[in-house]
Each structure stands twice: as structure tokens, then as C-alpha cells.
């Protein structure tokens, strides 16, 4: 479904991704593990067109994504739910979510249906739908971000650290939601620091270090791997 082939990405003189390759099959839930600064977000920025590649190829369902604008990537069916959420803080919850359907705006009935689905998925958002998104708690904001991303009807969903700064209970809710989205057929690429929780729902996992993939395999194989542990605790 989504493949990265020898991708390089530079920030000025710094090479953030160094000939990195990975693939996510249709319907898979692929987890990217790695410490802060390992390059997980850079992978996402490369895929969603926010940052130009220095080299390599990215393809989505056989289509080359090189040089496609962020808007074009969304239209092609790939939605990036970024780290830090990037909400529109002064807009209401409902508008934030609704804007996720911007590329499908002409399908009014579909937008309405999508909005209802998101509100059903996160009832707390339905309660607060007319409040400014910036006034919500971190967990609720993450729900808005996920809901907004789902409104783009992604075939592939990139989720960057959805558990960031959230309380354990909320993290669990978030992961349940991600697993549910995946079960309904969306391919998910999930970057996480919360390794065990992420491995619990993954179908495949990669460990990213210094802008390269250093290890990959099924979750069970990685769960007790020393290198996974080392990625976090340096041990």
C-alpha cells in the first residue's frame, strides 16, 4: 500500500533520514518505535509532502508521491495526524473536525455522516462540539486531531505520537480507537514512544534510530528485544 524506498531527507546540513526503506501492506497497523529525534516525525513529514526528499521514492498504492503537495497527498487518500496535533485552537471542536473533510467538501451528506461517526466514536467531543478546541484537555485535543484526520477518509493514516503527554487511561482509549479504525480497513502507520502499548495493537513494527531502520519484525519478536529497550533507556 505504502512503500518508502531508500528515502533521504535533509534539514540544512543535517541528514534526518538516511536511505530509509519501509513498507505497510494494505490493512496493516505498522508501528514505528524510536526515541525522540530518531527520525519518526521526519518519515511522516516526508510522506505527507511537508518536506521535500533529498533522494528516494515514496509510493502510495503504486502512485509516486514525489513532489506532490500536502493537499495532493490528502486527495490521494493519505492523511497525516501530526505530533503536537496542529489544531485550529480558536475554532470550535466541530469545525476543526469538519475541516478534516475539506477535500470531500462537495459530498455534503458524506461529511455529515463522517461527523456523526466521529462524534459517536468520541462522545465527549459531541458534548463539547461548540467549544473552542484550544480550551480542551490534551486527551480531548488528541481526539479532535484523530477525528479530523478520519474526516479525510484516509486509506492510509499516519499517526504521530498520539499518546504524547496523555494520562494512562486516555492513552488506552486512544489506542482502542486506533485499533478500531484499523479493523475497519484503514492502513495505519503509528509512531510511538509508548512501546509496549503500541506493540499490543501492531501487526508489524520497525525500530528507527539515527534516521535509519535498525530492526523490524512482528511485535512479539520485538517486545522483549534488547534493542527496543535500548532505544528508550540507553541500556
Amino acid at each position, binding site marked *: 500500500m505504502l512503500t518508502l524506498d531508500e528515502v533521504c531527507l535533509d534539514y540544512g546540513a543535517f541528514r534526518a533520514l538516511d536511505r530509509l526503506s519501509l513498507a505497510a501492506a494494505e490493512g496493516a497497523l505498522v508501528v514505528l518505535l524510536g526515541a525522540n529525534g530518531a527520525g519518526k516525525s521526519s518519515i511522516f513529514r516526508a510522506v505527507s509532502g511537508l518536506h521535500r526528499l533529498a533522494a528516494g521514492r515514496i509510493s502510495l498504492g503504486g502512485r509516486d508521491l514525489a513532489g506532490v503537495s500536502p493537499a495532493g497527498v490528502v486527495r490521494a487518500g493519505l492523511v497525516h495526524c501530526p505530533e503536537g496535533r496542529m*489544531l485550529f485552537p480558536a475554532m470550535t471542536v466541530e469545525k476543526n473536525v469538519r475541516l478534516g473533510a475539506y477535500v470531500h467538501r462537495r459530498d455534503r451528506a458524506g461529511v455529515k455522516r463522517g461527523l456523526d461517526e466521529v462524534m459517536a466514536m468520541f462522545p465527549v467531543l459531541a458534548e463539547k462540539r461548540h467549544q473552542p478546541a484550544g480550551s480542551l484537555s490534551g486527551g480531548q485535543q488528541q481526539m479532535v486531531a484523530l477525528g479530523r484526520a478520519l474526516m*479525510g477518509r484516509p486509506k492510509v493514516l499516519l499517526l504521530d505520537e498520539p499518546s504524547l503527554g496523555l494520562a494512562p487511561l486516555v492513552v488506552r482509549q486512544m489506542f482502542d480507537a486506533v485499533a478500531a479504525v484499523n479493523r475497519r480497513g484503514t492502513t495505519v502507520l503509528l509512531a510511538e514512544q509508548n512501546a509496549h502499548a503500541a506493540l499490543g495493537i501492531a501487526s508489524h513494527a520497525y525500530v528507527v534510530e539515527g534516521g535509519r531502520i535498525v530492526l523490524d519484525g512482528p511485535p512479539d519478536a520485538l517486545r522483549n528485544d534488547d534493542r527496543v529497550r535500548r532505544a528508550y533507556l540507553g541500556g
Partner: protein
Amino acid sequence: MRAAARGRDVLFFQQVLNGLTIGCVYALVALGLTLVYGILRIPNFAHGALYTVGAYAAFALIGRLGANFWLALAGAAAVSAGLAVLSERLVFARLRAAPPLHDMIAAIALLLFFEAGVQAVFGAGFFRIAPLFPQILRFAGLTAPAQRILIVGAAFALMAGLHLFLDRTWTGATIVASAQNRTGAALVGIDADRVSMLTFAISGALAAVAAVLFAPIALLSPAMGELVITKAFVIIILGGMGSVAGAIAGGLVIGFAESFGAFYVSTDFKDIIAFGLLTLILSVRPQGLFGRIAR
């Protein structure tokens, strides 16, 4: 005794109407400025020139092509909107990665260019556009020039329209969203270039409409935009840079302050009132009234 009190009431009403008129003009100019600030994050010093160009475009359409007032208004809006879009495409879009100082200098350069262009075509003299409604309305002993009523009515209609546009339409939402989080907007598929061009076009059109409506009361001169734009800056600093409601409220506040200041203090110093207010407030609160300045 009663006649004197009555006279005071009439004069008071006159000041309210004057304040409302000028406040509406300021608000329309400040609205465009604040929208562009939201997208560009730099003060567009050239905005005042769009105001001037708009007025002269209408003047030319009426005087040389015999257009009627409404047609001239639409034409002026189109000219200013077009120039705004051109300056965005040719200049600001290409300076995105440059230091903010460069954007500001470029904006100043555009301002100088537009002003000089107007002067080169029309000369330095003063002109006047005939009011659409020259009559004076009388109501319950109060009098009001119809043109002022037209300004207030049209301005409020435009503000309401702009509010509905930003609040209710997909296209309007793209502007609001981009101002609040540019990356977030890109990630839902909003085309940043399109939003920038649209925002500049709206800002130019609003400035031109304000200028044309006000032109029958004020006079046309190449420097007519300078004072208005400077006050519009005062307004968006006070009202919060990027805030639409702040621009409208700030515009009206400054309008009233000027009209009453001119009446009760001195006409000579009415133009200083806005700046004095700004200095006073920023001396006490450097972060502005709404605390969004010191980012």
C-alpha cells in the same frame, strides 16, 4: 434653556454619526489588514496604498468612463484586489523564507510605488467624487447626510457578509484555519497559496470599498491612505493582531474617540488621539489590550 439642551442633543447625535462613519471606514481597512496579518505574519504597510488606488480607480471610472457609482465601486474593488494579489504572488510569496525585516521593507517599497504611481497618473492635486446621495435626511429634528448613512449601512452589511463568509463557508474556513495553524491547514488538504491570494484579494477589495464610500466626504489625494492605514495599525494592535472582532470593535472605538475628541477637545489634534491612545496603552501594557502582541 430647553432650546440649548436640545441643541446639545443634536450636536451629540452629530458626533455619534460622525464617529460611526469614520469608525466604519477604519474598521473596513483594519479588517483587511488583520486578515493579511493572520496569513502573512507581517504588517502589510502597502495596504494603505490599496485604499488610495481604490479611490482613484473609482474616480477614473466615473470621471473618464462615465460609470455610475456602484459600477465604479465594483471596479475599484476589483483593481485593488488585483493589485493585492499581484503583490502577494510577485513579492510576499517569494520572501516567505526571508527575515521579517525584509518583508516589512518590501511592503514599504510597494507602498511607495503605488502612491507614486497614483501621483504620476493623476497629479498631486485634490479631487472629489460626488456623493451618491447628496441629500440630507431629516428625522425627528435630527439631520444626517445620506452619504454617511450609506457608509454605515454598507459597512455593516459588508462586515456581516464577511463574518458569514468566514464562519459559514468552506472557503472562509480555510482562511481562518490557515491563520490559526498553517501546517494543520496544509495537512487537511488546504492549498496555502490559494488561501494567501484569496486573503489578499479580500483585503484589497475591502480597502477600496472603504475608500470609495468615504471619498465623497473626504478628498482624494495621493497621500490620502497614509493616515487611514496608520490608524488601522493602531486598531489592530489594540484589538489584537489577526482578530476580526477586534478590528471592528477597535475601528469603532477609534472613530468615536476621534469624533468626540475633535468636538470636545480640538479639531487640530483629532488625528493624534488614536496615536496618543496607543502610546498610553502600550506604555502600561506592552502586550496590548488582548495580550497577543508579545508573541
